[in-house]
């Protein structure tokens, strides 16, 4: 990136100018015993290999876990938890802390018991085993999966004080799978005739039988039937052994434990695409088929769960941006609640429909800030403010809240979820 405020050269120049003062400020009164005294870990041996055949994070990271908001739902079996995005960096979400959303609990379905049926308007209805799927040509893609309800609790105002809770219904993984169009081709779409008005109904094997209708155009575009994530098998809670990946579209369509694909001549209008995952507007009418997740960003640090503890001076502001329309091309950060903005640095050029990491390498002098981030995607869509969203949709929506988030950073380094004028 080439903006003036955040180039590496600019930072170096600033550091050199202040080097005399910095050296004085760096003086330590006493030698550090962690250096001068020999530590146990430098004397005794550590764990052998195989101490943990499948490793988990070291115990010091035990707080970096999915968390639930118990009062949100009647029963944790049909509920959601949140990815600890405040404590992660980069873009890939480890499976073990990627949010879960179940409608009838996470089921155990062994590969040998797995069957996938394709039926409906196809030339030859087929049944595949898991082994069959592994014989189709595979692809790898990184995509974000965001629940349509992410940030939904904030429609009526700032409510949950932590980015994990306000924005944690999201994860980003590298999927290995086969294009859905390959399976449809295998069954043959001649029987479907003109494909322009045809649909694919996808359904899970769990007791909720979650099913959604996807227009054929999307089904033939980039939808994946995935069985690996981040290089390993999907986790149980993410649909082991096979889930659907619907890039850029709301998470409810990413049917887990995928068991059936039906080509239909109309949308099924299932429960999850009529009574749920529809957006009630101020006048009482509702939008349906709001599949795409619009561009969105949030600062993950500093944030309420990630206060500044190092005092004034150099500060890395970082966060995530994503868009269901394609690539993130730019992220701006404001320190004054949207009065002025500076362009952040992208960790690397983001993949289409995947999380993009951004950084603003800056100085904090202890003044209170109203921190915001604003994403812009390749279509030119600029993330709106929450008030702009409310002006169009009212406050009765639940889903698709992609408004700009504000953290109030106090002089003591703590941050709080607020809304601003």
């Amino acid at each position, binding site marked *: 990136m080439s903006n003036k405020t955040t180039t590496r050269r600019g930072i170096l120049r600033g550091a050199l100018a202040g080097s005399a003062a910095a050296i004085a400020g760096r003086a330590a009164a006493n030698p550090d015993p962690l250096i001068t005294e020999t530590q146990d870990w430098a004397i005794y041996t550590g764990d052998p290999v195989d101490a943990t055949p499948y490793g988990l994070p070291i115990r010091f990271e035990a707080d970096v876990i999915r968390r*639930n908001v118990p009062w949100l739902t009647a029963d944790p079996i049909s509920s959601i938890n949140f990815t600890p995005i405040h404590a992660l960096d980069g873009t890939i979400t480890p499976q073990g802390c990627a949010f879960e959303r179940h409608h009838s609990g996470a089921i155990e379905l062994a590969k040998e018991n797995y069957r996938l049926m394709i039926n409906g308007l196809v030339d030859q209805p087929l049944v595949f085993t898991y082994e069959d799927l592994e014989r189709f040509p595979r692809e790898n893609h990184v995509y974000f999966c965001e629940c349509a*309800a992410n940030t939904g609790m904030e429609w009526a105002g700032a409510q949950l004080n932590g980015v994990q809770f306000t924005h944690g219904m999201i994860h980003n993984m590298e999927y290995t799978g086969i294009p859905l169009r390959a399976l449809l081709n295998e069954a043959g779409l001649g029987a479907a005739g003109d494909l322009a008005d045809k649909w694919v109904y996808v359904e899970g094997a769990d007791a909720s039988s979650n099913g959604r209708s996807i227009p054929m155009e999307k089904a033939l575009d980039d939808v994946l039937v995935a069985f690996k994530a981040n290089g390993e098998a999907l986790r149980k809670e993410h649909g082991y052994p096979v889930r659907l990946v619907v890039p850029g579209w709301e998470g409810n369509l990413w049917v887990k434990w995928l068991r059936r694909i039906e080509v*239909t001549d109309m949308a099924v209008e299932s429960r999850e695409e009529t009574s749920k995952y529809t957006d009630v507007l101020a006048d009482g009418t509702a939008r349906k088929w709001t599949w795409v997740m619009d561009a969105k960003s949030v600062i993950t640090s500093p944030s309420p769960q990630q206060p500044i503890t190092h005092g004034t001076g150099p500060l890395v502001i970082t966060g995530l941006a994503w868009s269901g329309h394609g690539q993130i091309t730019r992220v701006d950060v404001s320190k004054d609640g949207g*009065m002025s903005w500076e362009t952040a640095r992208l960790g690397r050029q983001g993949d289409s429909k995947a999380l993009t990491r951004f950084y603003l390498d800056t100085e904090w002098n202890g003044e209170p800030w109203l921190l915001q981030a604003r994403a812009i995607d390749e279509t030119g869509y*600029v993330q709106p403010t929450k008030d702009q969203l409310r002006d169009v949709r009212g406050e009765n929506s639940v889903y698709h809240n992609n408004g700009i988030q504000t953290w109030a950073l106090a002089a003591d380094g703590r941050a709080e979820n607020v809304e601003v004028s």
Partner: protein
Amino acid sequence: MSKFPNSSLAISAAGGTALLLGVAYGVSTNGYGEDRIATLQTSLDEARAAFTAQSAETGDLEAALGDLKAATVAQMAELRAAAAQQAESAERQIAALQAQLQSVPSGAAQPTAEPMTAESGQPLNLGRAALPEEIAAWDVDVLPDGRGLPGGSGDVLTGEEVFTEKCASCHGDFAEGRDNWPVLAGGFDTLADEDPVKTVGSYWPYLSTVWDYVHRSMPFGNAGTLSDDEVYAITAYILFSNDVVDEDFTLSQATFSNVTLGNVDGFVVDDRDEVEYAQWHAEPCMANCKATAATITRKSTDVGVTPADDGSMAESFMEQQLAALGGVEWGKERVAGSVHMGEGGVAEDEPVAQVANAEAPVAIKDADAPDPALMAAGEKAFRRCKSCHSVGEGARNKTGPHLNGVLGRTIGGLDGFRYSNAFQSAADAGQVWDNESLAAFLANPKAYLQGTKMSFAGLKSEADIEAVTEYLRSFGG
């Protein structure tokens, strides 16, 4: 595949499968259509020549030629239309593929070759044919026009019994929803309110969805165990609870299409690209973007519903907050201004809106007002009735009749409300609501008026009955 009896279209013969899998093949299918037209043209010419030769022999053949000509022309038109459609599809495919090609960054770690299936369209002959029994076992979804419904039937009264046994523990005896579980009935005309109540009657657009969901996913924890007749009956009862059908209604394939849900026209297809995107595509402001400096308008810490690190504080946070708001018990009562995220069985994503906005209405005190404590208790107890009965200014009939002036009113005597037979008999007998009859009814509705469609179990506490009666008296009568 009974849902798609007429799937064999002329176009399918022209290779619709291959169409989407390769532009070249798509174009060739278009050519194939033209070949067919040419062939038909030739047959037409041949037929014409043959008939011309024979025309002297009989006038009947002339007529036959006319028929054949018409049929052939119609066939040609059909094929031309199909070919045009295919050409259009092929063009779309070309455009899509070109867009895909452009979107592949040069030098990026993208696969250089499309997978075989996408490129060649040649099936790999993997998998096996699905058997009819297998399709029948799994393909049970029901489409909005009723395709997919099995035989069988169920009536409202049977439905009430089954519902009470299998559904009421979560959804309440009369589908009003318990705790955070979904409300299935009532909520009419609330969609534009601050706190819309989205039920089958007020929100769901299609009856097929109710049948399909109950059949496949309910009861929670015991999904797919209901017989088709039970599903018909439960669905009929849910319709009855929403005033969509009368109590003598029986739901079956035959009566399915007679039912239309109230909110069928309440949905628009996603129009964000027209309504929103244009205004959010402007070049973003970078400096002096606001007239005045931004100030904090709302703080999450004023709400205090964030779980603590160990998760244990959530409940007590809530209790503190709600105590401050007037002692509403979370999870037991629906908090005004809140939207519940979930219900267990029936996956919901309805996050709770800001609780801080919830304020209990305050009874207005004046010289003639009844005991304010009793009124407050009555108002609180009446919350269990509110999903179906309204009182006060603007009160109207919902699932139950409005209760303004109910004391002194003839039982079943409100014009414009469709009462059960039990209430109509009481009205015919001239019975009137007074302290005594209301108390008896509230204590055990079904015992007092056998056959009432109000399946609320009754108020157990005499204090609640007294309080509700006083509360209702304050609205006239």
